[in-house]
């Protein structure tokens, strides 16, 4: 209950000003394709040099929470996920915007973010000490199985055919091998200098999601049809609020999945949304509606990626181990003030730790209010004619992919992948499994390589990867997931023939 004593520190003039500024700029940065939460936080580090530690962290915490939520804006309106966290948001969110329900989609996404985010931070507040060691349970073999578990949902994710889903996943896994091997340093598939650094996930995301729709929009523009703008439905905030409460299953699954995945360092933000989307679909009676603009999918994805934020800071604040790239930058923000997070952070610097956490809690509320305010305005983007919209999206895609590492190489990669994806989509392959393969490939590979090196020095690969309770549980989940996919595919076929 210590945290209550430090709420006063958040309500000083400077703190509130920093909180508002951080949230406002965070939403804008988050909504800009190519500017990930990690980059937004890194950009703000120099500003914190002049602030005291708690104030610096208020700024960084507000930026972190609001960039994650802001990513939903471009995901919904433009179908460009600002960061991997928002991939699942595009699946139903953008469909809703296309149906003229952009305002509703944005309102639902910010409300779902609020619920998930607040729950995640409450878990951080009340469970930080008991959960401190969870990060340490996961060794290389467990990460490997977790990544494989992710691979098993590839087939069912966002595509109508399991085989085509798996094939796109394989393309993603192959793309992930391009570049230097991260551990051994060997070069793989580098036939152009732009590929030396591998495929940057954000450049790939922008290309794969934005370029096919740009091509599509230009094509339609020439046909002189579909030039008419979409009618934007008005949607009140109270309607959105009651809709959220009517979807406890999606909200609960999203929040729970986000919280649990957030606790596992190194995986969290990238896949929380996708896993929650998949699970929510599996437990839903309206499976077929997913992908057509179903609010449940959006709610699950957005509550998950914000629920992940709080728990993802547990290993950082208790052990000094950054659980995500963003947490690594936050660690720098602490160290620069001579504060070394570890087991004693909450005892030695309670004013820093609790003020930081409290500001994120209040930041969630501020973020949601800002978001709801802009939702109505932002949704009018659907009224922009398609030909103009295509140019805007293309411009943002070029800017976003260049700004990731200020490199033209990433722009070429973005363009090439985007054009390839346009043709793949025409043949029924979808983007989400491909991206999931691209994210999970390196996790599975590097953990297998490191794990098997350790295993070779100990009792051998089999014992390392196939014994121990956590390995058993994870392998069990993998088997269950595959069995479920097979069962639902077979029963769907029976249903079709009957």
């Amino acid at each position, binding site marked *: 209950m210590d945290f209550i004593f430090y709420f006063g520190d958040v309500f000083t003039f400077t703190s509130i000003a920093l909180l508002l500024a951080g949230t406002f700029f965070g939403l804008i940065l988050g909504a800009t394709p190519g500017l990930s939460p990690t980059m937004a936080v890194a950009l703000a580090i120099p500003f914190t040099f002049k602030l005291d530690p708690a104030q610096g962290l208020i700024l960084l915490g507000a930026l972190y929470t609001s960039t994650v939520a802001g990513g939903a804006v471009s995901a919904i309106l433009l179908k460009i996920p600002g960061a991997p966290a928002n991939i699942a948001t595009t699946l139903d969110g953008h469909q809703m915007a296309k149906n003229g329900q952009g305002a509703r989609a944005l309102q639902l996404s910010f409300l779902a973010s609020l619920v998930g985010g607040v729950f995640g931070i409450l878990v951080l507040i009340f469970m930080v000490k008991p959960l401190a060691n969870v990060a340490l349970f996961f060794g290389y073999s467990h990460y490997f199985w977790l990544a494989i578990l992710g691979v098993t949902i590839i087939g069912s994710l966002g595509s109508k055919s399991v085989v085509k889903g798996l094939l796109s996943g394989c393309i993603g896994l192959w793309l992930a091998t391009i570049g230097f091997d991260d551990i051994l*340093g060997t070069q793989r598939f580098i036939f152009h200098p732009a590929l030396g650094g591998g495929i940057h996930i954000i450049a790939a995301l922008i290309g794969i999601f934005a370029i096919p729709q740009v091509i599509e929009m230009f094509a339609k523009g020439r046909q002189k049809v579909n030039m008419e703008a979409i009618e934007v439905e008005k949607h009140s905030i109270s309607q959105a609020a009651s809709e959220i409460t009517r979807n406890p299953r999606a909200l609960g699954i999203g929040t729970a999945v986000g919280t649990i995945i957030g606790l596992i360092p190194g995986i969290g933000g990238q896949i929380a949304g996708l896993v929650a989307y998949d699970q929510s679909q599996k437990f839903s009676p309206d499976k077929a509606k997913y992908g057509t603009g179903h609010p449940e999918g959006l709610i699950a994805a957005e509550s998950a990626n914000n629920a992940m934020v709080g728990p993802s800071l547990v290993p950082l604040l208790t052990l000094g181990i950054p659980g995500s790239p963003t947490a690594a930058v936050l660690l720098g923000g602490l160290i620069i003030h001579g504060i070394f997070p570890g087991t004693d952070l909450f005892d030695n610097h309670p004013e820093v730790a609790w003020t930081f956490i409290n500001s994120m809690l209040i930041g969630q509320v501020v973020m949601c209010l800002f978001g709801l305010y802009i939702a109505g305005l932002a949704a009018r983007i659907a009224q922009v004619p398609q030909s103009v919209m295509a140019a805007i999206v293309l411009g943002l895609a070029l800017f976003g992919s260049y700004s990731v590492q200020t490199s033209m190489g990433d722009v070429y990669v973005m363009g090439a992948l985007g054009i390839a994806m346009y043709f793949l989509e025409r043949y029924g392959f979808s983007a989400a499994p491909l991206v999931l393969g691209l994210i999970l490939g390196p996790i599975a590979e590097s953990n297998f390589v490191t794990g098997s090196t350790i295993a070779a020095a100990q009792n051998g690969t089999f014992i390392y990867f196939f014994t121990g309770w956590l390995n058993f549980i994870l392998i069990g989940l993998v088997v269950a997931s595959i069995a479920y996919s097979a069962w639902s595919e077979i029963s769907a076929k029976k249903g079709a023939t009957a």
Partner: protein
Amino acid sequence: MKKLLAGAAIALAALTTQAAADGHANYPDRPVMMVVSYGAGGATDFQARIVTMTAGNEDALGMPIAILNKPGAGGRVGWNWFATQAEADGYTLSAYNVPHFIAQSIKGGVEYSTDSFEPIANWGADPAVFVVSTDSEMNSMADVVAFAKANPGKLTFSGAGLFVGHHIAALQIEKAAGVKMAYIPTKGGGSAAMKAVIAGDVMGGVNNLSDAFRAAAAGNVKILGVADLERSSFLPDVPTMMEQGLDVDNSSVNFRGVMVPKGTPQGVIDKLAETVPAMFANKRVAGKMKAGGSPMHIMNRAEVQAMWAARQETLEALLAGL
């Protein structure tokens, strides 16, 4: 309009030729970019941001330095880019890590070597240390060597990749003690290697002194030895490898500094070599570095050139057998 454009073009051309003629007296007249070959939040990135924070001051460059992260494959991605793609005009700098890039160039498969770059100045020296988790039964390097002798190839210890400072230290320790241990390169830099030690995934690890110092202060690890010629002022109680009878010198010490691509105009190099060491010596910089537990070690261009040449020689000898 056309005339105006042509006039502007001529004026611009005149300006640039003049700048070239007078040895780039105006350099820098726009912000400068510095490539860091490791991810945001890592030790190199963190220190690079601190030591460049006063670049915009009038007594330094008078222009800010922006950090650009190009992480991947132990630094190979960023340095390959810097050696082959970066323009040699003084507006693109890079952080270097020695022995990392030298060891990688000796091992091969990369497009750079010490001849691809011109050093400007060195800001820090972070020795490698040997760490074990707090509950480990090993309390000195002698315990480590004894275990490794009794169990050849069974002692697993982590480090941040192959052919980086940690790996060099690992090779030197094995060679000095005459034992075979299992070096486990991890992905994700020093913090991932440290996590493996704390979590008990491995029995020990080689890590940065600065990170180990913080982890030890938080009660997560024990530091058994420092791979440097002298003890560190951050860890006055931890003996060096030499004091513990292991012939390990300072070849693995992670020297961090600034360099430019070969072919950068001499005027620009001279200007940087003159101002950058003074910029590192700034009091505010020193204060932040000390608070972060990051050991500073400022060297000028001539000293860095000598250090690079010396490292090239020792590393060639050490890596010859691999």
